[in-house]
């Protein structure tokens, strides 16, 4: 349990354009234990999404290394699942075909993947919509279909890039309960990126605060809810725990939201 699932060591990343060089990430080091749920918060443009791209192997770091399950990240890997802010469902494919995209591209066994996708979609309440098109689904249903697509290839590490931010408030609360429940039950290691402090504090075991560009790790908060009696409360219940406001305030103070750039 205590083995590190993700080890980010001294990662720096620079963007180059003909006009300038931009340092997006500066000396980021972060270890995430297997099965841990980590949230990274920071103001927009702090490089938190870029960090996920580096962990996913989509963007190579300028300096430093990333290890996932003890292996160096050199390009993408089926061990890592990634959910975007938009559900990125392909509108010409049915819900089931969308869920199968990953296994199709990875060349996994067709029948097995099909069964797995069906059972995932059914357990997320989309059983009747297997052959529906994404345009026929509500926002919450679309994001659940995207979750099924992500989990269909059975990754151990999940990177969530503000997956709830495009949803309305009620759907967002309900869905973050649902998704965090599923991911905790399956024992996945999760790195969630968000700008929503309440979401981070309610959902995660650890909240990392990142500074403005160049992105650096500013602080690391352990989140526990002893008042809930040993068990990790659901994000919705956590919001009414007495500890919640203290964590919220601590992260808020770190973020310097009101400071003008």
């Amino acid at each position, binding site marked *: 349990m205590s083995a590190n699932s993700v080890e980010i060591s001294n990662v720096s990343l620079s963007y180059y354009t003909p006009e300038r060089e931009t340092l997006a990430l500066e000396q980021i080091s972060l270890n995430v234990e297997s099965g841990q749920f980590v949230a990274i918060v920071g103001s927009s443009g702090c490089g938190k999404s870029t960090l996920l791209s580096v962990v*996913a192997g*989509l963007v190579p770091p300028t300096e430093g290394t990333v290890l996932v399950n003890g292996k160096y990240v050199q*390009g*993408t890997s*089926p061990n*890592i699942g*990634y959910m*975007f802010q*938009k559900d*990125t469902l*392909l*509108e*010409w*494919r049915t819900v089931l075909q969308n869920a199968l*995209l*990953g296994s*199709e*591209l*990875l060349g996994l066994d067709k029948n097995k993947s099909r069964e797995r996708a069906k059972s995932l979609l059914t357990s997320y*309440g989309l059983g*009747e919509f297997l052959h529906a*098109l994404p*345009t*026929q689904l*509500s926002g*919450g*249903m679309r994001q659940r279909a995207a979750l099924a697509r992500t989990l269909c*290839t059975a990754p151990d590490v999940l990177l969530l890039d503000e997956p709830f931010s495009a949803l309305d408030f*009620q*759907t967002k609360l*309900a*869905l973050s309960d*649902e998704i965090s429940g599923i991911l905790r039950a399956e024992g996945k290691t999760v790195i969630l990126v968000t700008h929503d402090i309440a979401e981070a504090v309610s959902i995660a075991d650890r909240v990392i605060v990142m500074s403005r560009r160049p992105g650096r790790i500013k602080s690391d908060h352990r989140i526990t809810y002893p008042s809930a009696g040993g068990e990790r409360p659901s994000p919705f219940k956590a919001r009414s725990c007495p500890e919640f406001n203290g964590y919220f305030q601590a992260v808020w103070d770190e973020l310097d939201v009101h400071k003008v750039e």
Partner: protein
Amino acid sequence: MSDETLTATEQNLAPSQPEISDGFANYLRTQRRRSAQVTMFQIGIVVGFLILWELAPRLNWINPMLTSYPSAVLRTLWGLILDGSLWGHTLATFYATLIGFVGSLIIGIAVAALLWLSPFLSKVLDPIIVVLNALPKIALVPVFFIWLGATSSIYAMAISISVFVTIVMLYTGFEAVDEDKIRLAKLYGASRIQILRKIILPGSVPTMISALKISAGLSLVGVVVGEFQASKAGLGYLITFGGQIFQMNLVMTSLVILAFLSTVLFAAIKYFESYIYRRRGIKSGQ
């Protein structure tokens, strides 16, 4: 949460209730009256134009030699049907137009795909395509005639007039496909060819249909112009021939058939478009 969404969807799918309130009935009546008025005016304009066209030459307001009139057009049309040449000329033009825009679409998809696969190639070829797209292709009619002869020069004209704009439209469409969808495919280790096949091409079907609409219209222009120069058949040929022997009846009849042909062509594409959009669960015309 899921229960709520389910019932909401079911309600949307349920047929509307039989009882209609007065306000709604009133609204529906107004809508129907409006659309009936529009149709009436459309028919009125056409009928009015035909009456004016018939009367003006007959009352000697204008020279009938120059304008012909609808009854003469009908007579000429009937004559062309009887001697069997109408079908042949119309089919020749239609067939060449079909080759033009289908050929343009196929070449356009192939070239745009190649450009998308190789950003270097697309940078290199960009100014060339821009120049070729801007060149008035009509100027190539005599060139094609000399190079390719009577029949093939018409196909070449139909394709060349529409292919560059098709390439530009499709390539722009390929480039505009959501970057996140490409990232998603890359995440699963997709190669550029796989991204093209699974994401770019199926995602660009609406762009392809728009390109088809434009290239169909342009191809028809190309075919008629090609027929002016080269052909012994087709509506373009009929128009030049009628002009040379000062038979305005024949010219006007050919124009009417041409208008009818392009209407049929666009109706067919429109039908194809709504079929595709229905299959994708999108409302047509969006």
